């Protein structure tokens, strides 16, 4: 009995401290380590970019950022469980576009796009057409000309279907009025391997591929507003007359019962890491393109992307 009382007392004490904490939490947040859940396996691009953020969080906020993985279903397993985690600000999850738009639109995956409380979109890997260094395609026009003469014969590898690569392929084919064959691979790594092995003629990849593979590949165009600082010689699609800007966007989200002040706090945290000069350089060298979409701008950003992705997905026949 005595033990029982003690237990209740301890429980009440705990409840009080928890209540008190929630009032003051935004000021001295974070006061312990935070969990950063990546809904993919280790070693992927989402993991690597989280790993790059990790030391800056520790440096600026003095607490550890513990990365854990919840892979499965192309991210769907993690995102469908996001809202059942504690909304105390100490759990955040990586989110990706176009995944969180396309997945719920195609089938019941246990979450909807609006279930995901996005806090900040911090970078994207811009779409790019990549060819091997010894390819005959010297410019984007070469590829378009060849595709016009040989409809469907230009094989292009890419990561998965319903992905940034796939949607870019569909949108570009429409814009250039050509027909290419998109070959889906499991992840960017496999798509690059197929390109380097000459299994396909070109790849729908990202600027990060250009950064990693160096002079073994050539990028014909990148889907950015302006040229990527790391590749000043590679034209943008816009320069060449195609209004194609985008790629795979990454950001963070929190469980839906996370209080407003903590959401704002996280938005500030990610923004401050993104603003760090050393971090910026690291990301640009890696081929990433930094963007800043803080918490209050997320809804507008999402609306625009949603419309764009769903249109492309419809013409691809992935979404009915």
């Amino acid at each position, binding site marked *: 009995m005595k033990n029982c009382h003690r237990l209740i007392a301890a*429980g009440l004490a705990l409840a009080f401290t928890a209540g008190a904490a929630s009032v003051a939490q935004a000021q001295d947040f974070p006061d312990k380590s935070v969990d950063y859940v990546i809904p993919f396996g280790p070693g992927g691009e989402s993991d690597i970019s989280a790993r790059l953020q990790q030391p800056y969080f520790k440096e600026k906020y003095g607490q550890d950022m*513990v990365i*854990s993985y919840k892979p499965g279903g192309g991210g769907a397993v993690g995102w469908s469980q996001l809202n059942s985690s504690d909304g105390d600000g100490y759990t955040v999850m990586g989110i990706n576009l176009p995944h969180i738009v396309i997945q719920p639109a195609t089938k019941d995956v246990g979450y909807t796009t609006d279930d995901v409380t996005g806090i900040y979109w911090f970078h994207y890997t811009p779409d790019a057409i990549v060819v091997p260094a010894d390819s005959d395609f010297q410019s984007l026009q070469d590829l378009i000309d060849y595709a016009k003469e040989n409809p469907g014969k230009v094989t292009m590898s890419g990561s998965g*279907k319903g992905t940034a690569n796939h949607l870019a392929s569909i949108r570009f084919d429409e814009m250039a009025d050509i027909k290419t064959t998109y070959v*889906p691979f499991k992840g960017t790594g496999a798509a690059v391997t197929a390109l380097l092995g000459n299994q396909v003629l070109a790849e729908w990849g990202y600027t990060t591929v250009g950064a990693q593979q160096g002079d073994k590949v050539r990028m014909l165009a990148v889907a950015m507003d302006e040229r990527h600082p790391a590749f000043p010689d590679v034209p943008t699609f816009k320069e060449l007359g195609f209004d194609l800007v985008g790629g795979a966007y990454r950001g963070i989200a929190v469980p839906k019962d996370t209080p407003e002040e903590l959401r704002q706090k996280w938005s500030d945290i990610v923004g401050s890491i993104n603003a760090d000069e050393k971090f910026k350089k690291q990301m640009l060298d890696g081929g990433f393109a930094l963007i800043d979409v803080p918490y209050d701008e997320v809804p507008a950003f999402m609306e625009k992307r949603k419309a764009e992705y769903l249109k492309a997905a419809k013409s691809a*026949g*992935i979404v*009915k």
Partner: protein
Amino acid sequence: MQIDARSTESRDVGGVVAAFALVVIGAIALYDTAGYADIDSAVFPRTVAIALILSSLGYIVYAFLRRPPAEERNPGTTPRRVALVAVMLLSVAAMPWIGFIASGIIAFLCLILVAMHDPWTRQRAILYPIVGIAIVLGFFALFRYGLLVPLPKGRLF
């Protein structure tokens, strides 16, 4: 006559039942593939489901034509087997409510009972539960703090 009676008995009833079940599974899978938007996702499961159905049907025919060698009987008590699976499933189901440690310890203690074939002595009655609790706590510490695995927390406490 005696030989006939034995031969019907020694037909692979279990195998045939399993084969029928697999035919049903194959058929359900075939039905599921009809709903895919992308033909690329349907090709492989469809082929495999057909292979499953054909090999299972083939086996059913084979089993009626030929007698398999008499199978060895598996000794042992069924209740303990069922109890093992039941305890494991229940402890996993309980995890989101009572948390990882509590459900782990309870499952461990129950499984000691399920697996206990030796007579209980006082020493064993004291030692085994202690060892069990130590193992659960040890692994919890290793996974939670050593390997940084976010183990399930209980909703109740």
